[in-house]
Structure formats: C-alpha cells, structure tokens
C-alpha cells in the first residue's frame, strides 16, 4: 500500500486532519499580521520583527494543538491495550480504520511526508555545504581589525567569543553558528571598503550574533520544512528575514553612529558581486538604503494586497473544508459515528457524548456495560462502541454444532456466503443486536433507518474482515475470526501473541454469557470456544 500503510491508521487520520486544518489556520494567522500592522502601527523594525516571529511560532503550534485536540476527542480515555507485543504510542483504536485507509488521507499524508523528507535532505546538505565553507577559510584579519571587533562585541554586549576570518572566495560577509559564531569577510570587502565602512559592516554582522538570528533562522528553516505546503508560512518567513535585516541595520547604525557609511558599504559590496547575468528584479537593497538614509519607504501597499489575498484564501478554505471533510466520512455524522467524529466544521467538535441512543431503553440488560470509554479496543478495529447484546427479543440464533472446522461446542451461526450488499439474514440479525441505534427490532421509530444502519454496519464489518483476515483464496469474512467478528463485532479485550495464539474476550455475549473467550492459533483458526454460559440476559 502507500508508505503510510505501515503506520497505524490512527496516526494517518490525525495527521491528515491536522494538515488540512492548517490550511485555514495558517491563512488566518497570516491575515492577522497586516491587521496587527494596521491596528498597532508599529514604528520600529523590532516590533514588526517580533510580530512576525510570534505569528510563525503560532503557525508552528497550530497543527500540534490540532493533533492534541483530535486525540483527546477521539481516544476513549486511552486505556492501554493488553498485548503480547508492545504497541506504538499512537494506536488509537477508536479512530476508524476503514475511514483512514480508504479515501485519500493516506495519500495526502504520504505526499506530505515525502515532501518533508526531500526538503530535509536538501536542507541538511545545504547546511553541510555551508559549514564546510566556514571550515575552509581560517586566515584571520590583519590588525587593527581584531581589536575593533572586540570593541564592537563589548558595545553590543555579546558574551560569546566571536572569530572573524577572511574568506577570499566569498562574495558577501556572513555569519555562521550561534554558540561559537564565525564571521566571514570577503577579500573584496577588505580591499574596497574604507575603515568606517568595514566597521559598519562588522557591526551589522555582530548585531546578528547579538540577536541570535542564526538560531532563529534555523528554526525558521525547520518550520518551513514541516509546513512547506502552505504559502502563508513562506510569506511570514520572508517577512521575518526582511525585518531582521532592518533591525540589524538599525543596531549597527546605532553602535557606530554612522548610517551613511553602512549604506555606502552595502552598495559597494553589492557592486563587487555584480555580474552581467543579473537582471533588474527589484532587490531588497533599495529599501534598506532608503531606511538608512531616513528616506520614506514604500512598504504598506504590499501588505494591504497580501492581506486581501489572504482573507480571500481564508474565506475560501473555511467554506471548502467542511464540504471536503464531509465527503471523507463514510458514515452519516449522526450516530453511530465512531467517537472520533472528525471535526467537519471549523468549530471544535462538541465532546462526543456517549452514544445518544444509549438511553436505557433496554430494560433487559442487566449489568450496564461500561461506557465505550472504558473499552480497550485493539488497534485497527473499527470503533463500534460495544453495546450490550440485544435483549432476548433479538433473533441472534446460533446453529448448534455449527461450522468452523468441527470445533467441539461449535459456535458461530452461519454466515450467508458472499453477500455484501443485500442484508444477510442471520448475520444481519446478529449485527442488529450489536449495532447501537438499533434497539431491538421494532423499537426504533424509523425501521428503514434501522435497517440502513444494520446494512452499513454489516457491510463495514465484511469489508474490514476482508481487509484484515483474508488469505489467498479465502475471503476474510469466511475465516474463523472473520465470522466471529461479523456476528459480534470487535472483542472487548484482545490478547495477541504474534505467531502463536490470539485471544478474543467479550464481556457479554448472547449465548455464551459473561467473559466469553475465543482462542485462535497462530494461523487464525479457532482453537477454543467459550462454553455456553448461563441463560442469556
């Protein structure tokens, strides 16, 4: 199957939901930026930088919160499942496996993971190339520069030691590293800049070090990798980089008390790396120079346009997501939904109340079974909240001495062969007993509604057993486990010793009474059936 086939369906489902939700969350957060700019009218680059960084941080937080939220509302109190082998953390039984493995959520998650993997490899290589570049040049600067750098370092209150090297092959000065920062100065700079100009440039680089910009940048790259598919993330990230340069320009100008030389140095450096291949593309340098020379800059129009665009995007996604999510559901939202009703609206889903149909209309049911919340379902079992078996009126017949390979104390009523669409007789009846919403035949107000539910449940169980228990030439629902699953749904407790045996325990079954345990061998053949218990309740 897809790459995510080996991951538990719960993870795939949650991840897909989070990714989709981030579409509107990201747009909303990004739209807040120009709004904040409009309201607060931040005057300094530092404030704008802070706003951008906060926005990006919230964007990174959004999917995490969404995932946590979904997990909370889906897991029935996350009780541990007793297994012979350990399970990964995310195995939430209650997320419907059927939904997660059909539909295109797995493809979405797979595509996303592939994107993240590729970008990570790319970034890791870029990092290595950059790092190798810094290792190559180790010639220090001639005096008096080390002293000047020290002085600037003190003025900017940088406690870490900073090394400055001359890099003949570089085209522009840069900084690498956060804890042992290194400044690389191109040879062109040493040659073409005056003393004041080079000092201004060094002050600019030291300002980057003082503000830990390199580290923030690394986090930016990380967030860009994970949320690569949303343009708002790139937009905000670009804004951060832009404002960062402005901040450092301001800081350098403040420390050296010299805006003019910094502006001149920037232009000289840009000239030194000019090549005939460059076309007029509106470089960001102009705005920086204008700011340094205290000239009015034209920013705001850009952000207004961006705000409008993002609001449109946000509106579009808000409208479209419920439509999209609704299409994914394979069951109607009203009961019986699995407790993890995927939030099909953009508002957080109401807490999944215990199945509403479970209103004591079953007097015959003696020990009210524990809420679905307490049931540890095995991973991957569709979450049909276990309901007490139907009252005696339910025609759950069992064929004595039944089939299943001559197991003594035979079990398992006949499953009509090979009918998926039509409502099979006994299986349906048995299922009818265990599907919530169908109280007893005749008790539901809308009979066709009940029948529809039963049909759907049966179809789903058959689908699921075919998926899970099929062997070449043997459809899933005809195997031992499949038949039992078809009749009575997922067991309340599952004990799996991979390869050797498997035990299914039902707390209460119509014929077998309390604590009915079925044992299967490593192949899935029934080895032990529960003995007939006391009279059905």
């Amino acid at each position, binding site marked *: 199957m897809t790459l995510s086939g080996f991951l538990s369906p719960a993870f795939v489902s949650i991840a897909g939901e989070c990714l989709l939700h981030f579409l509107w969350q990201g747009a909303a957060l990004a739209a807040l930026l120009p709004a904040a700019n409009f309201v607060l009218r931040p005057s300094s680059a530092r404030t704008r930088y802070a706003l951008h960084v906060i926005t990006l941080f919230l964007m990174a937080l959004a999917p995490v919160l969404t995932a946590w939220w979904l997990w909370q509302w889906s897991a029935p109190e996350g009780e541990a499942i007793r297994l012979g082998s350990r399970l990964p953390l995310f195995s939430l039984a209650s997320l419907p496996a059927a939904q997660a493995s059909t539909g295109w959520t797995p493809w979405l998650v797979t595509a996303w993971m592939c994107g993240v993997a590729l970008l990570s490899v790319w970034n890791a290589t*870029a990092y290595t190339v950059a790092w190798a570049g810094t290792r190559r040049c180790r010639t220090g600067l001639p005096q008096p520069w080390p002293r000047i750098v020290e002085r600037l370092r003190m003025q900017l209150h940088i406690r870490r030691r900073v090394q400055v090297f001359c890099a003949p092959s570089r085209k522009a000065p840069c*900084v690498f590293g956060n804890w042992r920062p290194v400044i690389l100065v191109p040879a062109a700079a040493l040659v073409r800049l005056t003393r004041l100009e080079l000092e201004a440039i060094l002050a600019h680089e030291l300002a980057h070090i003082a503000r830990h910009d390199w580290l923030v940048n690394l986090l930016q790259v990380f967030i860009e990798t994970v949320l690569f598919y949303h343009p708002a993330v790139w937009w905000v990230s670009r804004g951060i980089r832009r404002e960062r340069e402005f901040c450092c320009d301001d800081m350098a100008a403040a420390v050296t008390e010299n805006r003019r030389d910094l502006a001149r140095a920037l232009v000289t450096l840009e000239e030194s790396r000019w090549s005939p291949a460059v076309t007029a593309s509106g470089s960001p340098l102009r705005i920086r120079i204008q700011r340094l020379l205290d000239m009015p800059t034209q920013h705001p129009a850009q952000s207004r346009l961006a705000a409008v665009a993002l609001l449109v995007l946000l509106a579009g996604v808000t409208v479209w997501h419920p439509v999209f999510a609704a299409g994914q559901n394979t069951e109607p939202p009203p009961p019986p939904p699995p407790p993890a009703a995927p939030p099909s609206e953009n508002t957080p889903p109401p807490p999944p109340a215990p199945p509403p149909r479970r209103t004591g209309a079953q007097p015959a049911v003696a020990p009210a079974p524990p809420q679905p919340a307490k049931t540890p379902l095995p991973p991957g079992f569709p979450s049909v909240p276990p309901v007490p078996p139907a009252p005696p009126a339910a025609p759950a017949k069992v064929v004595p001495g039944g089939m299943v390979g001559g197991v003594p104390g035979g079990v398992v009523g006949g499953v009509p062969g090979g009918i998926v669409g039509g409502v099979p007789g006994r299986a349906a009846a048995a299922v009818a007993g265990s599907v919530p919403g169908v109280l007893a035949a005749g008790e539901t107000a809308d009979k066709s509604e009940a029948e529809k539910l039963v049909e759907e449940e049966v179809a789903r169980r058959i689908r699921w057993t075919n998926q899970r228990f099929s062997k070449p030439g043997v459809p899933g629902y005809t195997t031992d486990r499949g038949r039992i699953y078809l009749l009575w749904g997922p067991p309340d407790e599952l004990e799996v010793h991979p390869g050797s045996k498997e035990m299914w325990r039902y707390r209460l079954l119509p014929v077998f009474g309390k604590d009915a345990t079925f044992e299967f061998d490593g192949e899935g053949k029934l080895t032990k059936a529960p003995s007939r218990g006391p009279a059905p309740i």
Partner: protein
Amino acid sequence: MKSPTPAELEILKVLWTLGDATVRQVHDELERQRPSRYTTTLKLMQIMAAKGLVLREEDERAHVYRAARGREETQRRMVGDLLDKVFEGSAAQLMMGALAHQRASRQELSELRRMIDDFEAAERGRKERKPR
C-alpha cells in the same frame, strides 16, 4: 583550486593511468581516443602546470609531468564544487549575510549610489548653513 575543465580532466585521466609522463606520451594516449594536436595538448598541460593541477619536472629536455592530486581527491573536489554551486542559495540562507541573495541590477546600483551622494551633499549643505 579550481576544478579541472573537461579537457583537463582527460589529460588528468591519462596521467593517473601512466603516472609520470611526457607530453608526447600523453598526446599519444589521447590520440588513440580522439584526434588531437600535439600543440593543443602541450598548451593545455602548461596551463595546468600554472594552475597547479599537474607538477612538472624539468630535469631533462622533455619535461615530465605528474598529476598533482590523486583521482579520488580530484573527484571529491569536483563533487564539492558542484555541491557548492547547486546549494549556493540554500547555504547562503543558512548563513546570516549582510546582503540578500537577490542581486541588484546595474541601474539600481547606480541609482543607489546617486541617492547616497545626494544625501551626502544635502547633509553637507545643511552643516554649512548652520550658524556657527
């Protein structure tokens, strides 16, 4: 040290096989693969010696050339150069540079120069006009 050009790489490959060789020997080897002129090979090898890609011993009348670096090392350098080129932009983004990756055009640069000069002139004018 720059990477060898494709023609220089051919010569280096021959030198790696032959070890020490004169221009004549190298040329003979090259001729087997593809027609080439002795003078071209000689010129190339002289340039390579100047670049430092090959070492030259001038004891005898026919100079003996040897590859300055082994095959693996050269290959490593070539890969490194390629990586540098491919990842230039991304690596630049990981380093905090004074200049953005996007470059300015010639017009913009001259415009910016003019802006600064005008600003300076205005400032000087203001200073001179200030009453002492």
